[in-house]
């Protein structure tokens, strides 16, 4: 069941978004551990949708990119282009330790760098994988609800 709403989130959110954040998820080379957690975030238990966050299919419809995993060479250009495709104002969430600093994959031959090396990151969510509560926290910080 949905938990009672917490106290007002730490950040007032992004004022221009005002309670509505559409998210495009980009898997830049993740082990899919974070994806499992994202799935549960939007599932019945945590239900991020009640805070105004929603997953969408096209970066054109999105306000924020939810990037998981270290950025592999093959995904570097794709991530950059996805970022460019998002209309302003746009935010990037680096989800999980891999996305923040490549985690256990640091220095691997196929890894181009952390998400922050490719696109500007606004919010970081630590954890391997980050617990759903942390993800919710980050999303609420963005929607301000």
């Amino acid at each position, binding site marked *: 069941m949905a938990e009672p709403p917490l106290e007002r989130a730490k950040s007032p959110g992004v004022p221009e978004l005002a*309670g509505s954040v559409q998210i495009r998820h980009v898997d830049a080379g993740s082990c899919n551990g974070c994806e499992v957690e994202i799935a549960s975030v939007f599932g019945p238990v945590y*239900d991020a949708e*009640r805070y*105004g966050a929603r997953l969408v299919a*096209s970066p054109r419809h999105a306000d924020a990119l939810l990037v998981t995993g270290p950025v592999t060479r093959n995904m570097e250009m794709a991530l950059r282009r996805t970022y460019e495709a998002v*209309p302003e104002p746009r935010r990037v969430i680096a989800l999980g330790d891999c996305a923040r600093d490549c985690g256990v994959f640091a220095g691997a031959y196929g890894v181009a760098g952390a998400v922050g090396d490719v696109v500007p990151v606004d919010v970081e969510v630590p954890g391997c994988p980050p617990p759903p509560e942390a993800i919710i926290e980050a999303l609420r910080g963005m929607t301000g609800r």
Partner: protein
Amino acid sequence: MVLQLLVVAAGAPLLVGLMRQIRARLEGRAGAGVRQPWRDLRKLVRKEAIAPHGTGWLFRAAPPLLAGTTLVVAAAVPLVTADSPLDGVADLFAVAALLALGSVALALGGLDTGTAFGGMGASREMTVLALVEPTILLAVFALSIRVGTTDLGAIVIATASSPLSLISPVSLLAAVALAVVTIAESGRIPVDNPSTHLELTMIHEAMILEYAGPDLALIEWASAMRLTVMLGLFAGLFAPFGIATAGAGPIALLVAVVAFAVKVALLGGVLAAGEVFMAKLRLFRIPELLAGSFLMALLAVAASFFLA
């Protein structure tokens, strides 16, 4: 008419919000609240619009055209009051054709991008439209025989004055046909899934993948209004209770607005609840569904003779 326009324009996103809320609750979620679509729209108009390379005036004209056709339809259809100043200007045929024009605009916008998804969405939308159009026309035919005119206001008033005619097989068959058509035209399950993320199963969403910001806001708003208008039209044709007639006072109008809101919300709720329990049809099964609705409409016409 202005009142009706305002009600539709303001209420349409709320209807979508309500339907999402009902779905969320049935799926065991808390839901984003009824006003969430309005928040989404507010945010979208504050974002920047994007002109993808290689697109031109049609790409930009499509969203306003879609919204424009929907507004005209919303003004012409007897939703709140049967006495619209556009009465006699547009009848049921014109309404159906105007809705089709909106779809065409969006399909051309999708084709203009030159992406595979845009073309795919346009192609599928046109296929559905080509099969939906005949059903609408035949259902109109069936409903207008009894009244002797295709004028919407007249049909609604005639039905309201003799509610017994609603349980005739003609109404029954036409209602089934129009229900299927309404679902198909507004892109709901089982014809199309409005919340799909999988491009290959998309119809409506695939056409609008390139739109961003205010353009997208217009499209979402117009889609919500289309849904509202069609549900309202359906309610008006088959449950024309509470609709204000010519020269109604403010109280009658208020009652009409409330009745309209209740009816549409009820239909939307049924639709949303149905969507939870139903899976989307395979794309190439959709023609079967639409052929079925076409047959229903034809039978409705035939029945109006059989039992005349």
